[in-house]
């Protein structure tokens, strides 16, 4: 393994500063420790809690776990034991790449030898009147979750703006809290960036059968305070929709997408796109500055282009790759594969890679009454799977990733079997593994 020369004095400890205590930052800190037992590692987070997983928030909202259950790491004194200095509740305000230091809220500065920007993302707040009224929340942080939990009591009217991936996860948590829920989605279907019309349509029918009102092709025009006492006194808000109709609401949850947190580094001269641009070594345009996770716009496995994939699996992989390169090892990343899995009131859906396909062969199984759907997309007329979607199937779905990411050639016979019956994807996969 090649080792790049370190730019600091031989006997001086390298100080790795990691900003962002989500999965990318925590994974990077732990990996650096594995690789460099002596290095100094500081992990800065802008929230007061122990590093936690946003993905676990829906399970907190339904009472399946307590706040400790959301923590990314569970061992007692985990960070202390690894010699990782945690600095929670500190927001980064700026980056000076010449002086090699970052600024923190309150005027403090922190010098680094290597810097990892794992700044994450935050929910978009569309320019809609009334979005700052009390009772309107995003669902992103533990602080948000506490407020939603306080307001979304059984029977209360809740309006959810957005049925994208995150919105649909929140949907399940709200529905299980037994609120009276209406979901308002601008797109023509639920999860439009994760699944096609067939899957989105099934998901909508499923939700409606479970008592959730789903309005697609509809947007929220404005939110206002209820002027006249509503039928239910706790409905302090009115939500006006694009079709002119009005929904009374006690709580409005906004889930209109996320964007990378790049503001604090915007003045540093760092290369930016939708996120912080990184190469296949997670290096930014600034020397000794790396980026990972939701803030990083890096190599996409399918296209080779730079994309932001704000998903857990990518965050953890970015964190590991960054750690290897920050400690002088030359480690290239093959790129992240976009993939998601959702459980919506018991209907489990997932998608992988180029699920829309590239106009090539497509194997489909559609069972509208049984809420089952499987779609495999092949690369042109070839025998390599490039994308997949599944509704109502959970067994062995990881093999869909395996098929796509290994670019495995199935051969004509196996491809024909899958074209005739895509549910045999696992048997086909096993068959090609043990040829």
């Amino acid at each position, binding site marked *: 393994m090649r080792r790049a020369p370190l730019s600091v004095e031989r006997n001086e400890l390298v100080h790795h500063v990691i900003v962002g205590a989500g999965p990318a930052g925590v994974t990077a800190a732990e990996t650096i420790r594995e690789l460099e037992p002596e290095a100094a590692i500081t992990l800065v987070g802008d929230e007061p809690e122990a590093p936690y997983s946003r993905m676990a928030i829906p399970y907190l909202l339904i009472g399946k776990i307590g706040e400790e259950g959301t923590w990314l790491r569970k061992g007692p004194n985990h960070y202390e034991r690894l010699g990782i200095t945690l600095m929670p509740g500190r927001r980064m305000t700026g980056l000076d790449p010449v002086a090699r230091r970052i600024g923190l809220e309150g005027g403090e500065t922190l010098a680094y030898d290597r810097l990892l920007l794992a700044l994450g993302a935050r929910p978009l707040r569309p320019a809609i009147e009334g979005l700052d009224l009390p009772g309107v929340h995003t669902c992103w942080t533990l602080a948000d979750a506490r407020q939603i939990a306080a307001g979304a009591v059984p029977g209360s009217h809740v309006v959810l703006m957005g049925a994208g991936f995150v919105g649909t996860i929140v949907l399940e948590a709200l529905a299980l809290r037994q609120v009276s829920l209406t979901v308002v989605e601008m797109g023509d279907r639920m999860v439009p960036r994760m699944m096609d019309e067939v899957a989105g349509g099934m998901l909508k029918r499923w939700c409606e059968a479970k008592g959730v009102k789903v309005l697609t092709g509809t947007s929220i025009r404005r939110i206002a305070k209820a002027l006249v006492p509503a039928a239910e006194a706790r409905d302090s808000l009115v939500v006006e929709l694009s079709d002119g109709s009005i929904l009374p609401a006690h709580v409005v949850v906004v889930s209109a997408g996320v964007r990378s947190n790049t503001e604090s580094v915007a003045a540093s001269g760092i290369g930016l796109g939708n996120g912080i641009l990184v190469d296949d070594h997670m290096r930014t345009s600034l020397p000794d500055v790396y980026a990972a996770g939701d803030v990083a716009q890096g190599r996409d496995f399918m296209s080779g282009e730079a994309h932001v994939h704000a998903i*857990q*699996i990518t965050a*953890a*992989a970015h964190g590991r790759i960054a750690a290897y390169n920050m400690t002088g090892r030359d480690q290239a*990343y093959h790129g992240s594969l976009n993939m998601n*899995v959702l459980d919506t009131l018991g209907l489990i859906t997932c998608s992988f890679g180029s699920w829309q396909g590239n106009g090539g062969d497509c194997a489909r199984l559609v069972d509208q009454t049984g809420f089952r759907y499987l779609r495999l997309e092949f690369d042109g007329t070839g025998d390599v799977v490039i994308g997949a979607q599944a509704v109502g199937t959970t067994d062995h779905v*990881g*093999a869909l*990733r395996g098929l796509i990411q290994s670019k495995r050639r199935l051969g004509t016979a196996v491809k024909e079997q899958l074209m005739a019956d895509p549910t045999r994807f696992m048997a086909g996969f096993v*068959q090609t593994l043990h040829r």
Partner: protein
Amino acid sequence: MQKSLLIQPVKCTGCRQCEMACSFEKERSFNPSRSRIRVFDIHSEARFVPYTCTQCAQAWCLQACPVDAIKIDAATKAKVVNDNLCVGCKVCTIACPFGTINYVADSGKVAKCDLCGGDPACAKACPTGAITYVDAEQTGYDKMRAWAVKTDTQSHTHA
């Protein structure tokens, strides 16, 4: 000595005793659909392939878990799901490129092969020696692991 499961599909007759043994050991029911090892029937080639987790070095499931619910057992090196910590988010089920960690709706958690703590029931039940638990050096998983490298977006684990 580190041991691992050695699976030799050529010796498999498709009797599914392994599935019965696994489901009984792990779920206390004779229900092959709950087994963590599955026998695939490759009809076009008239053969059977038993298939389960290889306890791969990349540990995709463990890397992907957002709540620290998967750990490596110190003795067997198996990747083991801690049911008390698993929230059932299923991210590991899409992250594992072998498809060998699965969601179980009844429990609301995921399940995978944990090598039965070092005494795997499938190997004991296999009447033809298609599944054995042997010195890791001898196992045919090398081939699958070699394949895994190609899938590996974190190839440093092999560096």
